[in-house]
């Protein structure tokens, strides 16, 4: 039981004894009496933080070590780690000359409120409540003759997706945005401009390169250059 678990002994507010009691209480509210200070033990308590120097590092020794020891691909633009925070031009980035002519739009992924990553994509109520459309600035839409709700095809050399477009000033010119996590659904009867079956599910991974990011080795869903036309 949660209330008898020793890890919850000092929990505030105290844990209920049963599910029935939790239901009766309803929403739990707790207000901190004092402001919480980040790194309080370091700032006021004199304790070391978990860096090699024990201090807050602007030049990170551990990042410098990783940048030196890890193996990077010199043919992948931006595949390196630096000891100080800096802007790293990358493949499929804003300055990438190799892709900017064929794929003039930068595509960023974001967390849509209609899912948790890919979980709950199958819930019809959520699909109705949060439209899975690619966001585009009115400036970019004008040149392509697009209106909100139009079905578009978006592609790069890795794949093609087909989905509605939402024209909105909430995204910058030259940039389009698509909520990540939609389920891949290839229409094998139709081959897109990329030479792949058209993904009518609108999954951003269809357009994303299989190239782990330099430090986190994450899926680079925010690093895609694409072109968009009316479907």
């Amino acid at each position, binding site marked *: 039981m949660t209330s008898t678990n020793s890890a919850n002994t000092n929990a505030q507010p105290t844990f209920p004894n049963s599910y029935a009691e939790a239901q009766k209480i309803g929403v739990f509210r707790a207000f901190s009496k004092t402001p919480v200070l980040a790194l309080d033990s370091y700032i006021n308590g004199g304790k070391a933080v978990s860096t090699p120097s024990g201090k807050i590092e602007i030049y990170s020794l551990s990042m410098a070590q990783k940048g030196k020891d890890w193996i990077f691909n010199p043919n992948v633009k931006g595949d390196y780690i630096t000891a100080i925070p800096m802007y790293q031009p990358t493949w499929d980035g804003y300055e990438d000359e190799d892709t900017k002519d064929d794929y003039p739009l930068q595509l960023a992924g974001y967390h849509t409120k209609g899912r948790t990553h890919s979980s709950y994509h199958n819930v019809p109520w959520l699909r*109705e409540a949060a439209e899975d459309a690619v966001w585009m600035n009115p400036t970019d839409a004008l040149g392509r003759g697009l209106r909100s709700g139009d079905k578009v095809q978006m592609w790069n050399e890795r794949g093609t997706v087909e989905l509605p477009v939402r024209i909105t000033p909430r995204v910058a010119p030259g940039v389009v945005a698509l909520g990540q996590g939609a389920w891949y659904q290839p229409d094998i009867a139709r081959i897109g401009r990329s030479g792949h079956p058209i993904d009518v599910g609108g999954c951003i991974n269809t357009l994303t390169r299989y190239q782990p990011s330099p430090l986190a080795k994450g899926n680079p869903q925010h690093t895609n250059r694409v072109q968009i036309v009316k479907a």
Partner: protein
Amino acid sequence: MKMTQQTQYGFYFDSSKCTGCKTCHIACKDRMTGLVRAKDDVMNNGVANLPGIIWRRVYEYGGGNWSQNVDGSFEQNVFAYYMSIGCNHCSEPVCVKACPTGAMHKRREDGLVQVATELCIGCESCARACPYDAPQLDIERKVMTKCDGCSDRLAEGKKPICVDSCPLRALDFDTMDNLRAKYGEGDGHIAPLPSPSITSPNLIIKANRNGQPVGGSGQLLNPAEV
């Protein structure tokens, strides 16, 4: 005909708090299960999709422009905010006036506007009349449905499910007398709401800081979601 009404319920909505998360929209839809599909075997078949029946809608309203400087950088004055709207249980309900059968009615005891489903012929006159899009057609049963003010929950001393579900506490519901005592008259209605002079809605609005006047220069940004 002037009705002698004891009480008038209404909503309060704080657009400065709303993040557009749509928990109210989904919680409302969740309550419909067993209500508009009373005989559904939810345990074995899951819940009905109830396509297009959205009693509480969250409107995303925005505007502003981008302009490019000579050095290639951009300037912008973009804004956006959300409006969560169900039914305002109006004092001059145009849906009631438009209904040819008397199915759409305003309750004397609490001012809630509800549909007597057995009288409804699904002609959609109420939906065409309502400037808030509150009446929502159930295409499977071919009858109109709408926000019923959670009158079953009110009878249990609870607030409507949208109010209780809101993680930002942006919604409230009570008698208009109590709401006015708590919030005053609010900031007046803002876009994309229509002018309150059409139906005398029972809805007090606290405006978002970007709130635009009714008929403002922005636009509805999520037409597919409402």
